[in-house]
């Protein structure tokens, strides 16, 4: 009985002493408050056109006696594609796939890449900072700028653009003018699809097109 009573009184006593001492132990706290925000996916717009065409017209010059196509005016069509950063997130990589019109092919090694800043200042991007490859089967020219920051010292910021220029030549030179072309000169349509990345995030693929007419001479 006495033992039980002693235990009953001793245990709370010890608890009180321990908690009293614990209370006496001094503590301090430091707090670091963090507010972190992830970026939005890159956003781009694409426009394209032809640098050396007047009134979007190519003249196909045909020899009278045998209807062989001897040349075009201009000799090659110079194409430009502008890929503009239309979002707030900077861009470090762009890819352009250009589907050349039928009857046309890419003039090898004729690719020029530029970064155009908002004040119109131009930074040339040379190789090896971009690659250009051509699939003759699908007539698709692919140009990739892998690391804009390395190439230019800066990311592609909002409203800045990557301009890609290349030349395409008429594939029917030296051949006879196809039937129907004389009476109905073809209109050629050229499509470009572009995608942009920052780290692992990509923009939506955006497609633009441009067309030009022909005139048989």
């Amino acid at each position, binding site marked *: *009985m*006495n033992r039980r*009573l*002693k235990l009953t*009184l*001793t245990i*709370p*006593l010890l608890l*009180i*002493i321990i*908690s*009293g*001492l614990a*209370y*006496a*132990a*001094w*503590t*301090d*706290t*430091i*707090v*670091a*408050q*963090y*507010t*972190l*925000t*992830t*970026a*939005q*996916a890159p956003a781009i717009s694409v426009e394209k056109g032809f640098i050396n065409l007047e009134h979007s017209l190519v003249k196909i010059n045909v020899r009278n006696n045998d209807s062989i196509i001897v040349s075009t005016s201009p000799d090659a069509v110079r194409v430009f594609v502008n890929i503009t950063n239309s979002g707030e*997130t*900077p861009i470090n990589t762009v890819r352009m796939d250009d589907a050349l019109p039928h009857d046309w092919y890419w003039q090898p090694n004729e690719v020029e890449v530029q970064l155009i800043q908002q004040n119109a200042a131009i930074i040339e991007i040379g190789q090896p900072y971009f690659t250009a490859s051509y699939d003759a089967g699908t007539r698709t020219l692919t140009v990739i700028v892998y690391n804009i*920051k390395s190439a230019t010292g*800066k*990311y592609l*910021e909002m409203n800045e653009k990557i301009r890609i220029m290349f030349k395409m030549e008429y594939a029917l030179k030296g051949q006879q003018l196809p039937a129907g072309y004389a009476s109905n000169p073809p209109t050629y349509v050229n499509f470009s699809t572009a995608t942009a990345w*920052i*780290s*692992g*995030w990509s923009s939506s693929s955006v497609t633009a097109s441009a067309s030009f007419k022909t005139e048989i001479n």
Partner: protein
Amino acid sequence: MNKKLVGAMLVPLMVMLVAGFGYAAYVRQVNDYVSASAGTFDIDITGSPTISCSASYMTGTVTHPNINEIDVTVSNFAPGDYATVTFDIKNTGSLPGQLTKQIIPTGGLSSISPFTYSDNLPSSINPGQTITVTATITLPSGTTSQGVTVTFNVAIYGTAGT
């Protein structure tokens, strides 16, 4: 007999109770006002905290509103990006202490996902010692969460003792 025993136990119990709280109050008061003589434990953030970001398109700021707090804001994380915050903690008391930390999501969040946090906080700090804490916040590669804001606190608790 039992009544006597109860009395004999109750009296010391009451004395110790009062002494326990009295001691606590005394120590607390002494810590507050006469820290040097009684032994204190007090950790403060000293100097100027700094922040660096892994990409130039990121923006990061760190402020130091009082000796026990820093506020860090970083925006425009893309996958693989990270920010590094560096700050000094000084034990301005006279007692060594143990350090622990707790990451506490705020703003109704249950985690700091998609971010990860790491630091080099040591487990102890000596009187007069200044330690430099480097905290790294990372948005791991492969993250798909875009335009997301995450808030959290990192509470660093110091307790006197070794």
